[in-house]
């Protein structure tokens, strides 16, 4: 197969420069939202509205973080266009990693509560 033809075909399978830039802007906005959320909940601009947000602060932050993670993986790492085997090789350990983190945090929280209860 001709090298240049191959490269051109491969390039076509990737998103366009416009898509890359739009994703970059979305990532920037999501990061600004994360920091804004922190500022209005616990930071220098915290007020009554921030107090109302507090119970949802962590889930909202994790949701925004997961959104950014997915955008980078799908568009910048090309998982949306590339072969599904790559997605499998990445997502399978990612699921184990998430279960590991959640498991240990829950276990620690349980242990902490149990220790406090005496």
């Amino acid at each position, binding site marked *: 197969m001709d090298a240049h033809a191959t*490269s051109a075909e491969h*390039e076509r399978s990737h998103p366009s420069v416009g898509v890359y830039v739009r994703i970059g802007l979305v990532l920037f906005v999501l*990061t600004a939202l994360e920091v804004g959320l922190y500022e209005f909940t616990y930071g220098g601009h915290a007020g009554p509205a921030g107090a109302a947000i507090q119970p949802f602060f962590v889930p909202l932050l994790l949701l925004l973080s997961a959104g950014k993670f997915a955008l980078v993986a799908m568009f910048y790492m090309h998982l949306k266009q590339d072969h599904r085997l790559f997605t499998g090789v990445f997502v399978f350990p990612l699921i184990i990693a998430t279960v590991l983190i959640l498991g240990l945090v829950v276990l620690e929280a349980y242990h902490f509560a149990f220790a406090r209860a005496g």
Partner: protein
Amino acid sequence: MTDTAHAGHLETATGLDNRKLAIWTFIGSECLFFATLISNYLVHKETWLTGPGPFPHDAWTSPAGKVFEPIIEIPLVTLGTALLLFSSLFVVLALANAQRGNRKGLLLWLGLTLLCGVFFVGMQVYEFTHFVHKGLTLKTNLFGGSFFVLTGFHGTHVTIGVIWLFTLWIEAFRGKIPPAKSLNLEIAALYWHFVDVVWVVIFPVVYLIK
């Protein structure tokens, strides 16, 4: 098309380029590596040898009377985070230029990626130095230990990425990354994006969630 051939490479049983499959496998293993470090941080962040407290986000006085000032600098870390995210954009733009054979564009965007990476590493060096001067070291308490290990390992990954991308920039400068060899950059870019997504998780978990 399959990724077989990023040109000049032998056909494989999977029809995929072995190097690309290898980097994805490596990235998968790195997910588990960072999961252990993040779990370690989350489990230990409130386990103090010197007692519980809101430090490092807020000031705290230990039972012994030692005052710990808040040390987290959100604006600086936010800037570092934004630049790391932009570096991901820059590296895909560099890749798009490499695939089109636009050497000038490749050098420009890859150079900007490197600058962002160098700034991020510099930010972390400054932050670590600042923390040590404020009394938080690897040995101060379990928070310090787990914080420095997690962010330190991430910083090491960024440094390795900067070195890798710099070698590719030199290659590009010498005209040795034609479109047919753009996979070399794509593989490095995958590693760079992974380093970026790890920070996407670390940033809120360590710096924003108290």
